Structure formats: structure tokens, C-alpha cells
């Protein structure tokens, strides 16, 4: 079943991007509803997993925008809060890195996740997030610097 085969991948992506478990649950559900609605438009030009991944990213970003967080979080230069956020993944994997990523500002976190974890190019990220390519690069540079610093402590 499509859901069973892909829910782990979709949920992981939602969890890292949204950083909140209940919100990730909602976004995962929204993604599969969207997949169902759009399955007929999938032409097979790319792998199904690639298409599903893109749908997931679009759903998360659209939802962040819809909830009004986008403007607040993505247009203002926020200082990273390295004291409050919790990691998206509470068990297994690289918890130090997960924790550090979770503490990045939303814009830096999303660019880092999309580029360094998920393999998107800056042009794609800029299009998805509505940023200039240079801004995406700047966010990545900043995110990497903060993570290096945090992980070296």
C-alpha cells in the first residue's frame, strides 16, 4: 500500500521541517491526501519517490505559509535560539546534530535540511521558499557555521 510503504519517509521530512510531532502528523496526513488527489497527474517523468518528496515539501511550506508563520519567521532575521528547541527525532540517529538543527532559525533550518540533508539545489530551494538564490546560499552558509560551532563545543 502506498501509505504503508512511504509514511516513514514522509513523516520524517515533515518532522524535521515542522519540528513538532503533532504538526508533523497533520502534515503527513495532508501530504497523502494531496498525493491521492494528484496521483492522476503523476506522469512518471521522475521516480515516484521523487515526486512524493516534492509533494511533501510543497505541503509543508504551503502549510507554514497558510498558518501565517511564514511571514513572521522567514522575513525577519531571527537569532537562533540554542536553548529552547527540542530535536525532531528523540531516539536513534545523530541526536547531537538533530538537536542542533532543531535550534536553528526556521529559514536557516529549512535551507540546511533541503540542501544538505535532502539534496536540493539552491535554485530549487529559492523557488520553493520564495527566496533569492543568494539568500538561500547565505542561509546555508550561516546554518553550517552555527552547526559547526555548536557541534564543536
Amino acid at each position: 500500500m502506498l501509505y504503508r510503504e512511504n509514511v516513514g519517509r514522509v513523516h520524517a521530512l515533515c518532522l524535521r521541517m515542522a519540528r513538532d510531532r503533532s504538526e508533523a502528523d497533520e502534515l503527513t496526513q495532508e501530504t497523502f491526501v494531496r498525493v491521492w488527489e494528484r496521483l492522476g497527474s503523476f506522469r512518471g517523468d521522475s521516480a515516484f519517490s521523487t515526486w512524493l518528496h516534492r509533494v511533501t515539501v510543497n505541503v509543508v511550506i504551503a502549510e507554514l505559509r497558510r498558518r501565517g508563520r511564514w511571514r513572521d519567521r522567514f522575513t525577519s532575521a531571527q537569532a537562533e535560539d540554542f536553548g529552547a528547541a527540542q530535536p525532531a527525532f528523540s531516539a536513534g540517529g545523530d541526536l547531537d546534530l538533530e538537536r542542533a538543527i532543531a535550534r536553528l532559525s526556521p529559514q536557516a533550518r529549512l535551507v540546511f535540511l533541503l540542501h544538505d540533508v535532502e539534496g536540493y539545489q539552491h535554485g530549487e530551494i529559492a523557488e520553493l521558499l520564495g527566496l533569492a538564490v543568494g539568500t538561500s546560499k547565505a542561509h546555508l552558509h550561516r546554518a553550517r557555521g552555527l552547526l559547526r560551532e555548536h557541534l564543536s563545543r
Partner: protein
Amino acid sequence: MKWWLRWRRTPDLTPEEGAATDALVARARALPREAEPQRDLWLGIRNRIELAQAPDPARARGWRTRVSVPVWAASAAALLVLAASVGTGLWLSRPPSLDDPAAVRALADSLRDRDGMSGMRHNLLELLGERRDQLPPEVVAAVEKNLAEIDRAIAEIHIAFEKNPNNAALQFLLAEAYRREADMLEQLEWWTSTREPEAHS
């Protein structure tokens, strides 16, 4: 050069920072890509799909008003539209395909219990015959019509399957068709077993 190393040697990085960035990106690439949700999300997804797909809410609402038929009526109607789109070739003209053979096999495995499904269907149809008198005639007619149309859709999916046996979307739809049919009949059994005959007159 790996794609993720393209940005490691930005001019303002010292060799140490560059090495640390390489290590950081390698760790990022090694992060787990899967995380199962802590609760089953499928029911919510299914309900939302059914609500979104219901083609004739007025009719479904009318059913519920008259005979308290639950959501399954709208669900079945939604399935019919979807299944009919398969039968008419709407999906076949643009067949989705999965790139993961394991996913295709898993979908095929979900269909293996077809015989068991058929037996249950037979039993429930017998039950429908036995309790026909307890049901309003319009419900009996609607159920029989829906069953016939689902059967027709299933037959058409099977025909499409013969031409494209590895099409995951068809497998998914077929499994869904069987499940919806079983759901409808199970709901019918529950409905007739929990109501007094005079309540339907």
C-alpha cells in the same frame, strides 16, 4: 565531486572550517530518512479522502437523513467515481509507476487474500438477502446498485491489470475497491443487526 561538497570551499573558510563542513554535511547525509509516526494516521487520511471525493453530498445527506446510513454510502459513491475513471482509461492513459519494486510487491501481497474476501462477500450477500425485509426498499436498491457497479469496476481493473500487471496505482485501486466493498457489506450487517424492523417502516 559529490554534490554536497560543492560549497565546502567557500573563500572565507579556513582549511579547518572546510574540513569541519565536510564532516557536518556527511553527518547530515547520514541522518535517518524514515520516522514512523507514533499513531496510525491512515484513518484520518482515509476520512479526508472520502470527504473530498464524495461526488454527491446532497444524496449522501439524504440517505443519512432517511435511514441513518453512515459515511460508507458516500464512501462507496466516491469509490465508484474513482473506479469508473480507471475503467474508462483516464488513469491508464497516464499510468503512474513506482520505482521501488518492493513497494509493488507489497501492494500485490495485499491482494492475495482475494479468496478470503470473496468468501466474506458471499456470506454478507446472503445476509443481505435474509434481512432484505428489514431494510427500506431504497436502501436495498442502492446497496445492490452500488455492489453491481463496484463489481463492474473491479472487473475493469482486472482487465487493465492484465495489460499492465505491475502498475502500482491499479493494484492500489483494486485493493481499495475490495476494501470498500467489504466495508459496505460489513456496515450493512451492523446496521441490520442493531435496528428493529419497525424502525425502518
